[in-house]
C-alpha cells in the first residue's frame, strides 16, 4: 500500500532552538498516528509545519492526493495548498475559537467549506449540515444557533462536522480533548473512533494524554526536546517502553 503522507527529515528552528529535529515518519490510509510528549517537546510545531501554518527549514513533506499524485507540500503554491487544506485535509484545534467561526451559526460553520468549493444551493447545504450534525450527535434544532452557545464537547464535535463535510482524507488534531471533562472526553473519543473507522480517515493526533492515544492511535511517536525518542505500535510502546522518557511518561500516568 502507498503511504498517504511521508515526512522525511523535517527540521524547524526558532533561532538556535531546534523545535523539530530531523523528524521522519509515514502515514498510511486509515491509520491513526499519535504523537505524544509534554508541552515544549515540539509536537504542536511539527503539526503546524506539516499543515503549512509555519514554514520549516529542512525536510520533505510529501502527500499523495486523491488522484494518486505525489505532492511536495513545501513547494506547493499557496493557492493550491489552501485549496487542499479545505478539501482533502482538516485541522481540529484544541481551542474551538480557533477552529470555528463563533459569530456565525452552526449551519454556516459546516456549510463554509462547501461554499468554498463552489456549492451554491442553499437547500443542499442545509441538508448536508443536518446530516453532519447527526453524525457528530448534535441535535438538528441547534443548526441555527451560534457555537458560542454550545458546550465545550459540542463545540469540538462541531469542529469535526465542519471539516468532515468535504470528506477529507487526512485530519490533523491538536489536543482535541484538552480542557474537556472526563465524561465529555470519553464521548468525543468514542465518536472519533467510530468516524475514523466508517470514513476511513487517516489522523495525526497530537496530545499529552496517554489515555487518548491508547484508545485511538494505531502507531505512536514519543517526542522530547524536538526529537522522536521512540516510535512503534501503540500497544508495544506503551506496554514495553524502552526510552527512559517514555517509561517516565507511562509510569506517571494513572491507568484507569
Amino acid at each position, binding site marked *: 500500500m502507498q503511504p498517504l503522507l511521508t515526512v522525511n527529515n523535517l527540521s524547524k528552528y526558532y533561532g538556535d532552538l531546534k523545535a523539530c529535529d530531523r523528524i521522519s515518519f509515514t502515514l498510511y490510509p486509515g491509520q491513526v498516528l499519535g504523537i505524544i510528549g509534554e508541552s515544549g517537546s515540539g509536537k504542536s510545531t511539527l503539526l503546524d509545519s506539516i499543515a503549512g501554518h509555519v514554514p520549516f527549514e529542512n525536510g520533505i513533506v510529501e502527500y499523495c492526493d486523491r488522484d494518486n499524485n505525489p505532492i511536495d507540500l513545501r513547494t506547493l503554491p499557496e*493557492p493550491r495548498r489552501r485549496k487542499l487544506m479545505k478539501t482533502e485535509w482538516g485541522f481540529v484545534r484544541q481551542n474551538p475559537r480557533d477552529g470555528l*467561526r463563533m459569530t*456565525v451559526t452552526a449551519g*454556516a460553520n459546516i456549510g*463554509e467549506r462547501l461554499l468554498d468549493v463552489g456549492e*451554491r*444551493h*442553499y437547500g443542499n447545504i442545509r441538508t448536508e449540515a443536518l446530516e453532519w450534525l447527526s453524525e457528530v450527535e448534535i441535535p438538528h434544532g441547534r443548526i*441555527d444557533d451560534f457555537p458560542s452557545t454550545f458546550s465545550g464537547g459540542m463545540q469540538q464535535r462541531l469542529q469535526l462536522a465542519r471539516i468532515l463535510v468535504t470528506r477529507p482524507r487526512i485530519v490533523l488534531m491538536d489536543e482535541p480533548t484538552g480542557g474537556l471533562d472526563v465524561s465529555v472526553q470519553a464521548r468525543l473519543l468514542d465518536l472519533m473512533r467510530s468516524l475514523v473507522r466508517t470514513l476511513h480517515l487517516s489522523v495525526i493526533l497530537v496530545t499529552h494524554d496517554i489515555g487518548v492515544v491508547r484508545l485511538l492511535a494505531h502507531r505512536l511517536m514519543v517526542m522530547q526536546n524536538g526529537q522522536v525518542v521512540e516510535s512503534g505500535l501503540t500497544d508495544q510502546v506503551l506496554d514495553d517502553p524502552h526510552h527512559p522518557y517514555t517509561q517516565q511518561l507511562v509510569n506517571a500516568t494513572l491507568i484507569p
Partner: protein
Amino acid sequence: MTSSSPGSPGSPAPPPIPEPGFNFAYLDEQTKRAIRRAILKGVAIPGHQIPFSSREMPMSYGWGTGGIQVTASVIGQDDTLKVIDQGADDTTNAVNIRRFFKKVCGVATTEKTEEATLIQTRHRIPEKPLKAGQVFVYQVPMPEPLYFIEPSRTEANKMHALEEYGPMYVKLYEDITKFGRISLAYDYPVMVNGRHLMNPSPIPRFDNPKMDMNPALQLFGAGREKRIYAIPPYTQVKSLDFEDHPFSVENWEHPCEFCGATDSYLDEVVIDDQGGRMWICSDTDYCEQRQREQSGSAQKLG
C-alpha cells in the same frame, strides 16, 4: 426622439468657455496619463481593483473624487457630459460636478442619456439602456466588497488573489437563514467575468442586471480608497445568489405618479406630515422624456 426647443432643460447646453488658469480637466497631463494606465489595467482584468495615487481634488473625498478623477482623465474636448446623482441631473451634487467640468473643460453637457458620450453617476444606472461607445463612470465610496467580512486590506487582497469567496457566501447563507432572503438592498456584490468579486457602488440591486453584457464601458473610481476598476463592454456580471434563492430585483405596487412608468426605479416622496406619499421616477431624464412624449401624443390625439 422628441426634439425640444433650444434652451429647454433637455437640450445640450452650448460648450462654455473654460476658466483660465487650470489645465484642461484640472489635472496635469502626467497625472491623467497615470490614471489612464490604471484604467487600462482595470479593463484588462475586469472587476479587479487597481491601486492608483488618487489626488486631492477641489471637492471632498467621499463626494465623488474617484469618479471625477476618472472622468477628468478620459474626457476630451468633443465629449458631451451628463452627470447624475440619485438618478437626477438636478441634485445639488450633480449640478456641482457638472459645473466643475464646465469650468475646467468647457465641454458640452446634456441631461439626455442617449446624447451623452460620457456619463458620471452616483447611486444609479439610467433606465434608458446605455449604448456602445458610451463611457459610464461610477463614483465609489468603498471598492472592497469583503470589507465587512475582512477589515484588513492585506488579507482581503489575498482572498481576491486566491479567489477565496466562501466567507462572502457564508454571509448570504446567514441572511437566508435569519431573514428568509438575502438582505442586501444596495451595493449588492457581483462576480465579474466569473473571476472577481466586485462592489457595484451603492446602486440599488434594481440596477444590477443592467451591468451584465452592457455595450458601454463601465469605469469605477474610488478616490479616498485610491482604487480604480472596470467592466469592459459585453462582460458577464452576475449578482451573487444561491440556485434555490435566485437574485431578484425590487418592484413597486405603484406606477410613477408623473409618467406612469412601471419599469423604473421609484423615489418615495413624503408629501405631507400625515404620512402621505407619492412615488416618482428617480431617473429625471427618463421621466421627463416620457412625459413629453405623452403630452406630444395627447396633443396629436387632441
